[in-house]
């Protein structure tokens, strides 16, 4: 199973880009082996579906870099319990999966640098322009992963 988790605050402009991308992927990726979550924030109970996944793709906004710039990188388990309460981070979730369920999946982060995090439900132009490209990259990754498991 491939799990895609887009997260962020959709009321704070570009911070919601992860949710926006997850919502778009929900339309295009209809394979039942792909589970897509669009969430305000990461929460500890996500560790259970994460433990069942072969690959987890996190999608989030970033504040460092040129607006609209996007990058992807691998996430590995790292325990930081100070943040493991009502909100957490991808590395802690993977670490919790390892501790609780004895396994953790491969994990990738796709992040898009935001331009405006003020109140508002609209993405900035730079971020909106990047969204289709990020979606295509994630779709290709999912396709490759599904092929390799076929």
């Amino acid at each position, binding site marked *: 199973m491939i799990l895609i988790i887009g997260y962020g605050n959709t*009321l704070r402009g570009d911070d919601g880009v992860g949710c926006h991308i997850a919502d778009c992927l929900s339309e295009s990726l209809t394979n039942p082996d792909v589970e897509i979550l*669009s*969430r*305000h*924030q990461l*929460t*500890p*109970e996500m*560790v*259970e579906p994460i433990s069942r996944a072969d690959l987890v793709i996190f999608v989030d906004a970033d504040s460092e870099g040129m607006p609209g710039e996007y990058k992807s990188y691998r996430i590995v388990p790292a*325990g930081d*319990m*100070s943040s*493991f*309460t*009502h*909100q957490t981070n991808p590395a802690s979730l993977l*670490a*919790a999966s390892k*501790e*609780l*369920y004895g396994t953790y999946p491969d994990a990738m982060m796709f992040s898009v640098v935001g331009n405006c995090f003020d109140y508002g439900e609209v993405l900035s132009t730079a971020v909106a322009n990047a969204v289709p490209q990020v979606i295509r990259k994630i779709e290709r990754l999912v396709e490759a992963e599904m092929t390799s498991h076929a």
Partner: protein
Amino acid sequence: MAQQIMIDPVTRIEGHAKITLYLDDSGSVENAEFHVTQVRGFEKFVEGRPFHEMPSLMARICGICPVSHLMASAKACDELLAVSIPPTAKSLRRIMNMAQIVQSHALSFFYLSAPDLLLGMDSDPAVRNIFGVAQSHPLLAKDGVRMRQIGQQIIEILGGKRIHPGWVVAGGVSERLTAEKQDRIAALLPDGQAIAQRTLEWYKGALENYKEEIATFANFPTLFMSLVTPDNKLEFYDGILRIVDSKGKILSDCDQPDHHLDNIGEAVEPFSYLKSPYYMPLGYPDGIYRVGPLARLNIVEQCGTPLADAELTQFRNVDRQSSFHYHYARLIEILYCMEQIGQLLEEPDILSDRVRAYAAPNQSEGIGTSEAPRGTLMHHYQIDRNGLITHANLIIATGHNNLAMNRGILQVAKHFVKGNDLSEGMLNRVEAVIRTYDPCLSCSTHAIGKMALQIQLVEPDGTVVNELRR
């Protein structure tokens, strides 16, 4: 020389706080202050907004208990409309409110307090966390994840999303329950019930280990306040607002929402943004009272479901003045919610499509009261002739408990902290007494939540001589 100890920030709570302990010349604790150091001011910035926006705006106060604020806010808006919402809508709101209580109690018990309970108050703080619990008690840690997941999933099934669902609206709910959703919720309940039962069995067996904490964790007589049904059963959504004394004698019973605030004064202390509500007939600070799971179980005669009632009978054998037993009460309430949600799902009209009453504002003032996980939650709004908010006041569960938390910190500190021999375990107990109340400081001060703790030791002249930060 008198000194002062400060715990800053307080960890494993929802929000940001610090504690100051004042020592006398002999190094014994003389006084304690619980400082809530954040403010966000929701009550002010909603002024001028249309009243129907209030449920979704108020839900933004908190990522832990948005549903609780939705409930109280929607009830206040129902009052502005002067409508009686359809019975099915009331039942559906009850289900969502209980799912909220389940997920929040699970977070409090399994994630925030289980490390102390399982690994020990004096254990290494580096492993005294949910990862440490996962290593030493993997089944209980997994149960914690699952229990919270069950509460969150029920909220999501009903509201469309787990955090900040917009399904609860003025006049009822926006969408009926389908048979498919009914089945999905019902399928979650047996697992949740089993987790609640086995956690209770473990916890009751472990109580022997905490005798000293039970004796000293805010163990003193206070009043208690909560909603209760007319036949004295557990009630989270509606009913009578009851205040009893420490022996259970009823001091006040109020079934009119517009009178709910009549007995409650709000004092302000210079060292905290968190207000200190008190029972006005006894004055300040003698009108100290507690709300939340312990208060609710101390007030009711029965829970109203078979398994929870059996547990309540056993609960009555413990020292119910001790705030340590908030943990125990929380587990019983989780069990009750699993049973009660099952009963509500079987109501004959639960799938009815009559789930919302429509009206324009008919009153200029509305008060909504419900039980949040941490206790009684009150939203009070006034609107102008255009339906715009002119005044909003929220009295939050954590605020109700503020006086008791302060007094509890002092009791624990007097017992465990000696100025000349500070240890991490002592300080952890000072934090742990706060955790029994599961305070949500984001709500209570309407501030952005960050968990942290600081203890500071200060001499009478104000010099900080020792400090612990986490």
